[in-house]
């Protein structure tokens, strides 16, 4: 139960710290690499589409790929995620298609959530990836509850939930960790401490020494790990997942990382933060760092990178092309899924709308955050 140290595995030169290498198979290592890379490329494309006015909003995980891909990799396919909005690598890791991902950006009729939410608020049932919501923190107590449910039912499912440094201030952080502690729920709480909550820096968020230290308040272990080191994150989370699966209760993992981009397509970080901070973190890029490790292991040759990138890009671009060709969800869908069955009132409202004549109002405005 250490909270002040920061676990790191991949050293500057790309070697693993002595005795700490999790010794993943070559396939696993390549999969980690490819997933992080794909997440980054997806983010590049997403932001570009937003800048071109082709989608309404975007929000990147730039710089945080190791944090969420490494942690998610510690889970079984039958385990569940209660994500925040900065883990695009998880659906990729779970085999969700680029089509499913990109259709959500467009909110078109191929969107698994029927165009109900802004871009990047995915829901992927087949991947046990629970619908993302905007209100910060709400997923945290939900993950605790799902964990309690699994315990009651005797399932060995483990739950992983994500939130930012800002998320630790939320009501649900407090109640979620407290309930999980009391009921020994099989949950791994991953705080991705990227040092910023929009324009509010870490020290404006809490006077605590660390986020991991908050675990003690709930009687659970708290661990700090270098969030830009995919192997370190994996290793810490693997242990936490195993503890959870054995019925030993929850863990709080703090991945120390950095939001390399602006908060979202609506934000401009240069207005409130210093370039040096950014530069210093750029040196610690999680993908480049992992590539040095892979090179050391002869599993990666920089000369092959462009081809790898191009391949992923092409797949994503194909998906974008297909998504752009799809129409909006049908008008009727507006009234679906409020309840399993629509009430008489909803049916009447739908019929009223269907009966209207004349031009629809235009889309208005742009998303400001």
């Amino acid at each position, binding site marked *: 139960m250490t909270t002040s140290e920061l676990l790191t595995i991949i050293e500057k030169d790309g070697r693993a710290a002595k005795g700490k290498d999790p010794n993943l198979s070559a396939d696993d290592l390549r999969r980690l690499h490819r997933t992080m890379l794909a997440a980054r490329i997806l983010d590049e494309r997403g932001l570009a589409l937003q800048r071109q006015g082709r989608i309404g909003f975007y929000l990147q995980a730039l710089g945080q790929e190791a944090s969420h891909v490494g942690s998610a990799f510690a889970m079984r396919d039958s385990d569940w995620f209660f994500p925040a909005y900065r883990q695009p690598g998880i659906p990729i890791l779970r085999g969700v298609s680029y089509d499913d991902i990109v259709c959500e950006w467009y909110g078109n009729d191929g969107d698994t959530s029927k165009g109900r*939410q802004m871009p990047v608020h995915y829901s992927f049932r087949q991947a046990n990836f629970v619908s993302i919501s905007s209100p910060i923190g*709400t997923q945290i107590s939900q993950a605790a509850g*799902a964990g309690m449910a699994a315990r009651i039912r005797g399932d060995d499912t483990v739950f992983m939930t994500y939130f930012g440094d800002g998320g630790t201030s939320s009501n649900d952080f407090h*109640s979620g960790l407290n*309930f999980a502690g009391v009921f020994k729920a099989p949950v791994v709480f991953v705080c991705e401490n990227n040092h910023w909550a929009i324009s509010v820096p870490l020290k404006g968020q809490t006077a605590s020494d660390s986020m991991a230290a908050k675990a003690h308040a709930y009687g659970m272990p708290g661990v700090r790990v270098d969030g830009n080191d995919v192997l370190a994150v994996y290793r810490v989370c693997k242990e936490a997942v195993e503890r959870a699966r054995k019925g030993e209760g929850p863990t709080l993992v703090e991945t120390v990382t950095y939001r390399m981009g602006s908060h979202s397509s609506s934000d401009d970080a240069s207005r409130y933060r210093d370039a040096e901070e950014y530069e210093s973190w750029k040196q610690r890029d999680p993908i480049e760092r992992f590539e040095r490790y892979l090179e050391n292991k002869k599993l990666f040759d920089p000369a092959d990178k462009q081809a790898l990138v191009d391949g992923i890009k092409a797949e994503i671009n194909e998906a974008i092309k297909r998504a752009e060709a799809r129409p909006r969800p049908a008008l009727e869908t507006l009234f679906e899924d409020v309840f*399993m069955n629509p*009430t008489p009132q909803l049916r009447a409202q739908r019929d009223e709308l269907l009966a209207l004549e004349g031009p629809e109002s235009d889309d208005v405005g742009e998303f400001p955050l």
Partner: protein
Amino acid sequence: MAQKTLIEAVTDALHHEMAQDDRVVVFGEDVGRKGGVFGATAGLQEAYGTERCFDTPLSECGIIGTAVGMAVYGMRPVAEIQFLDFIYPAFDQIVSEAAKMRYRSGGEYTCPLVIRSPYGGGIRGGHYHSQSSEAYFCHTPGLKVVVPSTPADTKGLLIASIRDEDPVMFLEPKRSYRSLKGEVPEGEHYVPLGVGRVAREGTDVTVVAYGAMVPIVEKAAEKAAELGKSVEIIDPRTLVPLDEELILESVRKTGRCVVVYEAPKTCGFGAEIAAIVAEKAIGHLEGPVVRVAGFDTPFPYSLEHLYMPDVRRVLKGIQRTFEW
């Protein structure tokens, strides 16, 4: 059929559903060993164990947040909020999460949970143990809102709520918990959500009332009958979904409408009934649509008996529909 109080009907329904569906779990503050501060969950922990009926830490936010997670994962949580006045720390989880889970995920994830809570005044609970906040929930798409008024309906509607595939706010008129006794069917008893009832037939004026206001309105109707006015009482039973047609039919027949509710008047559920009537039965109205409600003040302690709609205020409201 056995005679039961309204709160015994709650317990009966919980027993029945816990016995037949092991996805049903009951939790909240003091619901375990103590059996709830009103006794609604008495005996459940003994019968179904501490895994299926248990106490939680003192956090409504956590109670509902974890309930949402359980429901999403496939359970049928029945969460108790000790008093409806204390539900607000959980408001975000209710309106942002439970209510929207199905919609925002395009139907991929659902949230079948029941939030039971005693509501309303009349027990000298004062400022913070008396509120009626059903309107907040009725205004939140994605929530069903149920308010039973009789012991039998309490059982049947609670069973229907637990089996419902969507989140249900089940608001129990605590004033009637022990003061109201009635026949309650043994075993299976299902009263579907969305179907109101005519609590009393009449011809001159329709009074819409629910929960603890129904017995008050029944008394007022007796008085009104003595004064030569025949009152029809409609108890919608579920506010969402609302059995609009039942109300409109009655108003079209009587030409007059009073709505009685104990929540603050402004923007209360009675405003919705009045608005529906003003939109859809206007041509049949022979008098103003009158609301008899709590005043637009917080709930008082010493003057509770003046704050809450009583027989004389209901009668006055009825009388006003004849003056225009």
